């Protein structure tokens, strides 16, 4: 038997983790699309329709905030909804991931966090294949700068970190509290109003704005809008977004790992 160095076993553990995430994400995607990858583009349809409805109803009221352009309002709404749908979809699906695989976890030793992580990765794949190219094209069309679509990867990184952290947090909590989906649904609904998706952030009263600025999705969406609509890469905002993402991820990892030893008694 060859003695294993700590580095060696760490690398092996890491590659096993990635492989597990790979197959679990693949499994989730094949279950969703049944062989037709075009199904991904259905996920583009919903934000397009929602943006059209919002533009019809609120477009005129908020027109002055968007250079008197319905198109710019519609694009702002679209970017907001895309980011928010990614967050709500990925975290709501991650919520049940550990519990749904309880049977498997009782039979084989697996790192438990792979299940929520794989769900977020599957959703990320869907975003990168489905909506991200569209956002890139929109950026190119609005700004004419071929480098700017690349900048979209930074807010993407931030929102993925937020989703990973939140996904780990809620999937761990769900092991203990089986009525959590009900509360989480309410929380997502509240957040969908508290995040400036279909209204300009400028209309929020200042006192209220302090509370709302704690929502990392707000700054991430603002960064995306700056890139797509105005061709601006706001580095300070990107730094805030990435920090917020990193902190959410840290919180999720710490909570998940702290409670991990209790999970198996509840599955």
């Amino acid at each position, binding site marked *: 038997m060859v003695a294993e160095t700590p580095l060696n076993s760490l690398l092996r553990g890491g590659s096993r983790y990635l*492989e597990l995430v790979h197959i679990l994400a693949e499994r989730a995607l094949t*279950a969703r699309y049944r062989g037709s990858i075009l199904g991904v583009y259905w996920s583009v349809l919903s934000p397009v329709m929602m943006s059209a409805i919002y533009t019809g109803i609120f477009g005129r009221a908020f027109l002055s905030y968007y250079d008197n352009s319905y198109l710019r309002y519609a694009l702002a709404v679209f970017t907001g909804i895309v980011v928010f749908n990614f967050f709500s979809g990925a975290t709501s699906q991650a919520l049940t991931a550990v519990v749904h695989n309880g*049977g*498997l976890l009782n039979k084989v*030793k697996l790192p438990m966090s792979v299940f929520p992580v794989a769900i977020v990765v599957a959703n990320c794949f869907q975003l990168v294949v489905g909506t991200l190219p569209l956002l890139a094209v929109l950026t190119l069309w609005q700004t004419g700068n071929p480098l700017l679509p690349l900048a979209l990867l930074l807010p993407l990184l931030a929102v993925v970190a937020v989703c990973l952290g939140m996904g780990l947090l809620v999937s761990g909590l769900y092991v203990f*509290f*089986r009525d959590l989906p009900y509360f989480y649904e309410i929380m997502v609904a509240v957040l969908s109003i508290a995040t400036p998706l279909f209204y300009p952030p400028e209309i929020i009263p200042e006192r209220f704005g302090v509370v709302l600025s704690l929502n990392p999705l707000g700054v991430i969406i603002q960064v995306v809008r700056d890139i797509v609509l105005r061709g601006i890469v706001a580095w300070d905002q990107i730094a805030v977004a990435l920090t917020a993402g990193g902190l959410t991820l840290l919180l999720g990892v710490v909570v998940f790992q702290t409670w991990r*030893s209790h999970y198996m008694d509840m599955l």
Partner: protein
Amino acid sequence: MTEAIRLDRVSLWRRTQEEFSYDLKRTVLNIFEGKYRQPIRKQILHEVSLTVIQGERLGLIGANGAGKSTLLKVICGILAPTSGTVRVRGAIAPLIELGVGFDPENSVLNNIIYYGVFLGFRRREMQRRAGEILEFAELRDYALVPLKGLSSGMKARLGFAIATQVEPEILILDEVMAVGDENFRRKSQKRLEQFWQHRHTTILTVSHNLDSIRDTCQRAIWLDRGKIRFIGDSREAIAQYLAETG
């Protein structure tokens, strides 16, 4: 004589599920009303010590709820002992009762690969071995069929074929030997023999079928309410167990 598994004074406390509310609303309300209690824990294993030599076939017997499956979970590393140490040398493959870990909508081939990766094998290696597994399970014509299309006997054959094809150093059989028809049972019996004789695979069996434990295992452990009552020759263990229960 290499040690395959060694447990040293392993005790395990678990939370009893009935005591826990499983409910955020009730937990919050209980805290407000001052009725919140720490969840109750129960000792499932009491200072279990045992050593298994590589290539040994060991049986686990005992009444329902004695902790047999829990002990296997501790050995597999699924549950961490509350106190004591567990040392295991080599890859463990549990033979799972079928259904768990399989995705009914996915193809048989994909399920083989996923399942193999869960057991700790590389994806590429499983792609290479999938053919042999299908061959052994006599399911070659079913590779692309969704798993839900298989009969329960076919699924059982598939599970056995995967767990044994991955050539583990330690194989865990938890009440699953009665799989498939007479023909397949003979075939799987033969494969286990081969494993044990030629590859020195360590085999742990849990069964209520005392005759099969007597026939296949040299040693057996009688577990009673989380304590080892007897460890040694399987005939002796079964005789003592029967004397107490019968």
